C-alpha cells in the first residue's frame, strides 16, 4: 500500500515529495500472470527501453542479473527466482535513481531469495541506487537495511535496525512475542 501510494497507483491524503526528475525502478511481488503468455523477457526489456527511451544493452543487462538464454523464453517458462531477477533487470532499464522492492522475494525458494538479496546489494553499490524495500523477513532486514521504518496499525518507528529490531519493540509492534535469529551477530 505504501509503495502503491508512492508511485501514484492509489489515491492518498498528505503529500509525497520526490526530488525533481527522479527515476524510479519498481519490482513488484509475485505477479499474477498466465503461464502461457507468448511474451519473452527480451520483449519486456525492449518494451520498457522504448518507453523510457533508454540506451541499455539488453543482453548485458540480462547477464548482469544472471540470465542468459532465459530471456529468449516465454516468461511463463522461467522459475520464480529467474522471473524476479528479470523484473529487477526491467526495473534497471532507464537508469533509475531509486529502486522500490515490494516483497520481491516472496514465493521464491531460500537459495533464490539469497541470490536476489545479494544481487540487489551489488547493484545498489554499482549504480549508486537508493533502495526502498518492503520485507517481512526480519533477518534479511537486519542484515541489509541501513534504516528501518516499521508500520503497524497504531505504532510506527524509524531508525537503524540495531535500535529498532529489539525484542521489546517488536513485541510492541506485532502485538505478540516475536523471535528471530541474527546470524553471525
Amino acid at each position, binding site marked *: 500500500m505504501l509503495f502503491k501510494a508512492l508511485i501514484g*497507483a492509489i489515491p492518498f491524503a498528505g503529500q509525497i515529495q520526490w526530488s525533481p526528475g527522479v527515476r524510479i525502478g519498481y519490482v513488484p511481488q509475485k505477479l499474477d500472470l498466465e503461464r502461457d503468455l507468448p511474451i519473452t523477457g527480451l520483449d519486456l526489456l525492449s518494451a*520498457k527501453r522504448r518507453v523510457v527511451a533508454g540506451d541499455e544493452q539488453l543482453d548485458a543487462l540480462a547477464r548482469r542479473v544472471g540470465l542468459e538464454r532465459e530471456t529468449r*523464453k516465454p516468461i511463463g517458462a522461467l522459475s520464480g527466482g529467474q522471473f524476479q531477477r528479470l523484473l529487477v533487470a526491467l526495473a534497471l532499464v532507464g537508469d533509475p535513481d531509486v529502486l522500490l522492492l515490494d516483497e520481491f522475494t516472496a514465493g521464491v525458494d531460500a537459495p533464490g531469495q539469497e541470490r536476489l538479496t545479494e544481487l540487489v546489494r551489488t547493484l545498489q553499490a554499482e549504480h549508486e541506487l537508493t533502495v526502498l524495500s518492503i520485507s517481512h523477513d526480519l533477518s534479511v532486514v537486519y542484515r541489509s537495511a541501513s534504516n528501518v521504518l516499521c508500520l503497524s496499525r497504531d505504532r510506527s518507528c524509524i531508525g537503524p535496525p540495531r535500535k529498532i529490531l529489539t525484542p521489546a519493540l517488536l513485541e510492541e509492534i506485532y502485538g505478540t512475542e516475536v523471535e528471530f535469529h541474527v546470524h553471525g551477530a
Partner: protein
Amino acid sequence: MALEVAALLLSIVTASIAGLVGCFVVMRRMSLAADAFSHVALPGIGVALALGIHPLFGATAMLVFGALIIWGLERRTRIATETVIGVVFSSALAVGGMMSSGEDLVDALLGGPGQLGPGELAFGAAAAIAIGTFIIMQRSRLILWLVSADIARTAGIDVARLNLSFLMMFALTIALGLRYLGVLLMGSLIIIPAVTAKRLARNLTEMLGYAVAVAVAATVAGTYLAHRAHRPTGPIIITIGAVLFVASLFKRTR
C-alpha cells in the same frame, strides 16, 4: 465490381486489425467480455434504422458508450466489470432485438452482403489506419501495462489514458467488422485468431503475426465459400477460424 474488390480489401484490412487488437484483448483476459461487448452495438443499429440514418453510426456510438462504461468500471474493480458486462451488454442484445426485425435483424446479427457505400468505405479506411497506427505506436506501452500496471506507471505511462484509448480502438475494431460479421460474431474474429496465435507463438512478434494470418485466412476463405454457397459470410468465417483454433490444439505444448 470495383466496390466488390474494395469490400474484400476492407474485410482483409479489418481482419488484420482484429487479429492485432485481439492479441492484447486476450492477453488482458478480456476474451469473454469481448464477445458480449460486440452485442452492445445492436440497439445502436436498431435506433439508426428507425431514424433512417446509417446503422454504422448508431453502432459506433453505442460501442464508444460501451467502452466508456467498461473504462469507468475498471477504474474500480475487475469483478464488477465481468458481472456488468455479462448483464448490461447481453441485455443490450435483447433490447436491440426488440427494436429491429426480419431481414435487417438477421443482417445485423450475422452480417450480410449489404451494399458497401463510399461513406462506409471511407470510415472503414480511416478507422483501420487509426487502429493500426495505435497498436504499432503503443505496442511497448501496452505490453508493460498488461504485465503490470504498476511497472507501467513507474515507466511514466498514464495507465488510465492508455486503457481508455485501447478500449476506444477495441470499440472501433468491432464497428469495422459489423457489416460482414454482425454483432454476434465480430467478437469472435477478435478472439479466435488471437487465442490460436497465443498457442502457436513463442514471443510477441510471432503472436501478432499468427493472429493476423489466421484472421485474414479465415476471412478470405470464408468470404469465398459464402459467395459460392450463397450463405451469410459471418458464420462461415468464424467456423473456419474455430477449425484453425482446434487444429492449433494439436501442437505439442512446450
